[in-house]
């Protein structure tokens, strides 16, 4: 095998042999094939778009949400503590959104109460008791259910839960509990799937150590696995709650949309999202009621940020 460099002499000689130093000049950087400025510009631009989107959402919703206080002189304090929501322009209108804030909070909490035990229990079942089939059958089924659109949950709530409520608890059947059940079921697969992941992430060495000292399966789960997965499980629950909190249409379909303050979970109620869903289309831009709705949106945004912060704190603790 005779090899010589002459064999590949057809290669143009001006190839890269010129200079090893970087080329200067802005235009050159874009035309030179060795430069990667073109690709980089696209990439950096896209990353920047994400920032723009977040900043724009925050900024514009804040500006629009503050209008009712700044332009329309609604008292901020009565807005968030008042319970009287009367938008009739002819009579003295009042904007007290506490009923909605309360409605959102209670629906979220109730949904978490409904979903958490079942979700954590199923997650333990999937990740600890029936690993094989948990992995092979339950996991894909749950992942598919995560993708079921929320209107479908709302629709089922409307056709199954509401009539059930009407028969057994009287009234119209549209009430807060129905809303909580609908979102509770809706977040069930999400919470289960994240919780199962965090239980799987607990190293086996911990379990073995527990079994080695004669602990039963349940003692191992309760004393070792759950504490070890603790903050991840919390993250799963909080994520579920934040989804429940932000859900609009499914709740709106079953909760009854009463602007009065609910006195029991069997009373119709409204949440921040439902009142926005319901009224936003019927109001004209710039009117006081429309501004008040944007303020509700701002509250929604702020509470979403609080959820995001809590999740960050939880996951930071996990990483330490």
């Amino acid at each position, binding site marked *: 095998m005779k090899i*010589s460099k002459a064999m*590949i002499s*057809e*290669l143009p000689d001006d190839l*890269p042999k010129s200079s*090893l*130093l970087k080329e200067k000049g802005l235009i050159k950087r874009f035309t030179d094939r060795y430069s990667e400025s073109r690709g980089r510009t696209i990439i950096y631009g896209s990353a920047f778009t994400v920032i723009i989107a977040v900043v724009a959402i925050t900024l514009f919703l804040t500006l629009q949400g503050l209008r009712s206080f700044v332009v329309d002189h609604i008292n901020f304090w009565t807005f968030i503590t008042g319970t009287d929501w009367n938008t009739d322009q002819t009579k003295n209108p009042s904007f007290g959104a506490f009923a909605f804030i309360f409605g959102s909070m209670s629906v979220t909490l109730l949904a978490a109460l409904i979903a958490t035990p079942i979700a954590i229990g199923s997650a333990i079942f999937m990740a600890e008791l029936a690993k094989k089939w948990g992995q092979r059958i339950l996991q894909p089924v749950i992942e598919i259910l995560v993708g079921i659109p929320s209107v479908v949950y709302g629709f089922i709530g409307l056709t199954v839960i509401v009539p059930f409520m009407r028969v057994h608890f009287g009234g119209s059947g549209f009430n807060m509990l129905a809303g909580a059940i609908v979102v509770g079921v809706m977040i069930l697969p999400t919470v289960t799937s994240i919780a199962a992941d965090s239980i799987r992430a607990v190293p086996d060495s911990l379990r073995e150590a527990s079994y080695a000292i004669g602990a039963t399966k349940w003692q191992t789960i309760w004393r070792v696995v759950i504490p070890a997965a603790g903050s991840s499980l919390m993250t799963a629950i909080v994520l579920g709650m934040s989804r429940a909190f932000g859900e609009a249409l499914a709740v709106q379909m079953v909760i009854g949309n009463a602007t009065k303050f609910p006195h029991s979970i069997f009373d119709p109620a409204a949440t921040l999202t439902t009142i926005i869903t319901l009224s936003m289309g019927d109001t004209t831009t710039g009117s006081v009621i429309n501004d008040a709705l944007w303020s509700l949106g701002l509250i929604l945004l702020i509470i979403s940020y609080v959820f995001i912060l809590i999740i960050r704190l939880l996951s930071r603790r996990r990483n330490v």
Partner: protein
Amino acid sequence: MVVQMENKITSFVNSEDVDRPVLINVEDTNIYYGDNHAVKHVNMPIHERSITALIGPSGCGKSTFIRTINRMNDLIPSARCEGKIDYHGINILSPKVDVVKLRTEIGMVFQQPNPFPKSISENIQLPLKFAGIHNKKTLRDVTEKCLKQVGLWEEVKDRLDRSATGLSGGQQQRLCIARALALKPDVILLDEPTSALDPVSSAKIEELLLQLKKDYTIVIVTHNMQQAARIADYTAFFYQGELVEFGTTKTLFTMPEKKSTSDYICGRFG
């Protein structure tokens, strides 16, 4: 002990290859990974058209060092280099150096054969196309010549458009060498090129390197001392981040100056 070793290794490389001029000169080079001082005060020449082997126990900094010669360590955010590696009057470590151009002149082949999951001919043509060569005939000719250079042509000429991942490990590694040759580099760096291969493929690669050194400057990292003794003109022994000893392979293996060198060569550690 040393004498025994010499008996075992029957043929050192021809000594006439050891008077080549210096192509790359490494002067007081230090490499850090964060706070870890991985390579300490290395001074050594790399001679033109010869094979320089870097040997030493694992973790001694030899791979880190070879990856610095074509700035592959830039990929690791925590890595930092100080010192001077002179190449044609330019300091390779300088931030002014265009690393992309540098790498077309100083190619590299890795431990794990890493052909791209594309066809065999595309693997070789990719760097050429990037360099602006689109003439189909030139591309075909260069592909053929590079494959001939590594002795792969006869084995693959009927399946140039099949995926390169279907080749055997040894063939993949030779393809990677062919790929590195396509742009006519001056220097080829090889980071343990045979450690993932079977003995027969390794022998083929060694034979290939001996052929290639007629035209290329070759630096090879190896943990196999016999391999260094068989093919290298110069050998550098690294230990704990320091260059312990550098010299012609014959000298280093038969008359090592430092005790740790002879200990390593005799297999007392590593």
